[in-house]
């Protein structure tokens, strides 16, 4: 069930009504049942997976907690982490591992291997597996396990965050379940506003940009370097609006039940360095990677080279978490290298006061923000391109913007000659508007203007979002497409 579907538009109000009309003691059960129905609406059989992992992790949590001997505690933890990772590896990475093995065998003169069965990737597995790992590790570190089974089951399956996060922490979430829920005007208003905002981000911006981006990334050889930068910028905004829009709907839906889930995005393209970017982009994942991968690897302890190594390993694995393909791995590695380089150069700033002054000045801040954004865009090329070789084709052109290289071919643009679909000509207005909007939101947030906005202005803003969602949401009715063959 997609958030921007008619089914969800019917499902959410029904669950909302049932939740608030029932007694407190039934509410967790209602949400749990709703969450399982939500999950089963895609492929009912996968309920067995989420249920199986829930039961296993629930009891493993107790086993870890009750074990007196450190060795036994560690064994139970290893069993839990291995079990979770194996289920993720089987469903998400089996094809990837098989492809890697096949390539290796082919390179050494052997034959390709084939999996004897088809595997369908269960929705949300990357997210709930990470939540389970966080749970067992934190119990191992001394936190009390969750006693209530329905609360534990709901923690992992809570439908607003089930498919794409944010990745929750049980210490923040479970107390909210156990306390009596209260519907307040603030949470009702914020919840519905966030849902509308998320839908607008998705329907108005991300879906249209996706159409544009596909045109460039599918045939980069047709376009010049300058064109390809525009496609990269467009993808940067597409992925941001898509993912943050999803998170907004998730957070808004949770708020309607009186629960708060963590924010995931905080104007990431306003970051002035790559480290700040990861404090603003997919925050729940970056903090998870820090706590359950980077720190266990040694974190910032030890020599600076070990620190860089840990950063690179963490980000490379983080890249692979996004998708089972080599280009995601390269994207992660690229970010790991950027973070390591940032850490490496950081002392330079401290030792050279003139450099520090220049970087901290308003002009320095603007320059470093622009530089960070462009480095992130280069990373997005690896993320979005279907293969690394396509990404390299694009990047070779994007980085050859000079009148002396290639006879200045990469400076000539094809995009202004394309006038269909309408997103192509309008992209020259849309991208500057999105950038301006991003900057405006930064300053509005900094000045605290949202809290000072009068009720009427807020209502007008919500009205505009309602209109946009009603008008621009695509029809969900089935269509007879005669020429589809």
């Amino acid at each position, binding site marked *: 069930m997609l958030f921007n579907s008619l089914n969800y538009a019917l499902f959410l109000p029904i669950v909302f009504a049932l939740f608030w009309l029932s007694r*407190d003691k039934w509410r967790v059960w209602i949400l749990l049942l709703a969450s399982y129905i939500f999950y089963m609406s895609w492929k009912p059989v996968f309920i067995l997976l989420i249920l199986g992992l829930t039961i296993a992790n629930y009891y493993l949590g107790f086993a870890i907690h009750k074990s007196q001997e450190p060795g036994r505690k560690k064994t139970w933890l290893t069993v839990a982490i291995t079990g979770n990772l194996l289920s993720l590896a089987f469903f998400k990475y089996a094809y990837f591992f098989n492809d890697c093995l096949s390539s290796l065998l082919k390179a050494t003169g052997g034959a390709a291997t084939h999996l004897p069965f088809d595997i369908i990737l269960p929705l949300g597995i990357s997210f709930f597996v990470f939540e389970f790992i966080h749970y067992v590790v934190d119990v191992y570190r001394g936190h009390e396990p969750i006693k209530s089974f329905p609360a534990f089951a709901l923690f992992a399956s809570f439908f607003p965050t089930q498919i794409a996060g944010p990745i929750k922490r049980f210490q923040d979430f479970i107390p909210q379940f156990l306390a009596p829920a209260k519907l307040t005007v603030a949470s009702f208003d914020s919840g519905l506003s966030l849902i509308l905002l998320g839908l607008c981000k998705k329907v108005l911006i991300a879906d249209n940009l996706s159409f544009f981006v596909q045109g460039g990334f599918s045939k980069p050889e047709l376009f010049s370097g300058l064109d390809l930068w525009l496609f990269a910028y467009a993808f940067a905004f597409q992925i941001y609006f898509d993912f943050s829009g999803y998170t907004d709907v998730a957070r808004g839906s949770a708020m309607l039940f009186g629960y708060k889930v963590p924010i995931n995005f905080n104007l990431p393209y306003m970051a002035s360095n790559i480290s700040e970017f990861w404090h603003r982009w997919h925050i729940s994942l970056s903090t998870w990677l820090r706590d359950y991968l980077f720190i266990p690897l040694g974190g910032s302890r030890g020599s600076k080279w070990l620190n860089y190594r840990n950063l690179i390993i963490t980000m490379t694995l983080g890249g692979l978490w996004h998708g089972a393909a080599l280009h995601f791995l390269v994207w992660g590695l690229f970010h790991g290298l950027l973070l390591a380089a940032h850490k490496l150069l950081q002392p330079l700033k401290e030792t050279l006061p003139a450099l520090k002054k220049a970087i901290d000045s308003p002009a320095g801040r603007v320059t470093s923000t622009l530089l960070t954004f462009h480095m992130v865009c280069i990373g997005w090329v690896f993320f979005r391109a279907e293969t690394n070789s396509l990404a390299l084709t694009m990047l070779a052109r994007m980085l050859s913007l000079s009148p002396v290289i290639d006879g200045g071919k990469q400076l000539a643009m094809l995009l202004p000659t394309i006038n269909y679909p309408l997103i192509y000509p309008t992209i020259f207005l849309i991208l500057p508007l999105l950038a301006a909007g991003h900057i405006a939101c930064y300053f509005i947030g900094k000045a605290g203007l949202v809290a000072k906005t009068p009720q009427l202005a807020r209502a007008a803003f919500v009205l505009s979002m309602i209109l946009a969602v009603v008008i621009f949401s695509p029809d969900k009715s089935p269509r007879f497409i005669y020429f589809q063959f």
Partner: protein
Amino acid sequence: MHTSLDKPKVEECLSRRENFRKSYVLLALAFYILLDGIFRLSSLPQFHNFDFLKFSPLKVPHRSWVYWNEREFLTSPDKNPPDTALLGSSLMMAALHGGDAVYLEQPQNVAFHHKSRLLADLLTAAAGKPESNFAFALGGEMVSDACILFEHMLKEKGAPQRVIYGIAPRDFMDSALPSVASTEIYRYMSHVSDLSDLEMKARTSPSEKIEYWLGKLSFIAGHKEDFIYIQQRWAKALTEKLLPYKDLDMVKTPLHIRRQAFSELPEDSGANEVLTCPPRVAQEAYEDNLAEYRYRYRKINWKQFDDQLSYLERLLSRARQAGVSVILVNMPLTSDNLAIMPENFYKRYLEKVTTLAERYQAKVLDLNNAQLFPRCYFADSVHLNMRGGKHFFEVLADRLFSDPQTKAIMIKRP
């Protein structure tokens, strides 16, 4: 244990109600309802003061084949109905464009070519009086679509003398069809004319029905296509003003982007996009499309067949009421295509259509004859190629005047 419903407190309820009065989301919803009501009122003819809300069937965001068709039909200076209305699916459409391309030895722009010059000339010569025609033949046209187009024509320009409707088994049963309301023709025509007596019957899935009722309930939701058109018009105007673009209605785009756009908006087609050019080779290419038709015939759906048959009955009944003669032409198909049809399907189709035609005094002309239309006249297993299109209209004109019953229809004066 405390529960919110165990001890309801009157004060708490009142204060909660008071708080919800401060809700800006509820205020926005109230504004939406108000705005929706204002739009609904403004759209009534007696309050029709805003250019902004003067919706038109020719102001739509996507220009589909049915749009180009209706555009020419509605904006034509000729206020009289054509003598002959041609109905049919892509089988008739291919013959129309290909036939004229060969006959006139000129490329035919599919967006603007809706009258068969070849047929007009053949009928004029045979009848000894000027004959006009207009084709409502569109790719994928089901019988239900043909019925809606015919009724709209009656309403807009009155009754033609006759309807020549090229039919084939697929027009009655297509496994790829989710519902009557799912075709682009239906969707467009529901925007153009009043189909309220069909709306619920035409929709089968709950999501279609819910969307329909939401559209009825809210004026804005029901007119979203009109608002999207307004948004596109503004976006185009702004782009043309601020950037060096001219005439954004003419499609200029690389092929791979056009293909991608087609997969997203299959119904959208620019004015300059599809031309049928006269053949340059002696033998036109033949494309095997049997896999497509295996899919279309894969599951026999008699319910859909009977439903579509009821639309044919409706068309025949309306035609009789309006004094319009109907000639049903069983379109030529290849033997390969007939061979992949489910058992008894073709036989039952022909029997049912013939019985119905007899009941309403319509005439059936069976041109599905391999001797008349050998394979060299086909572009694939169902569509005639360009020479086949010319041959089709020549055979049709000949048959119309050689059969006494159809000849009577053809020479009948209004």
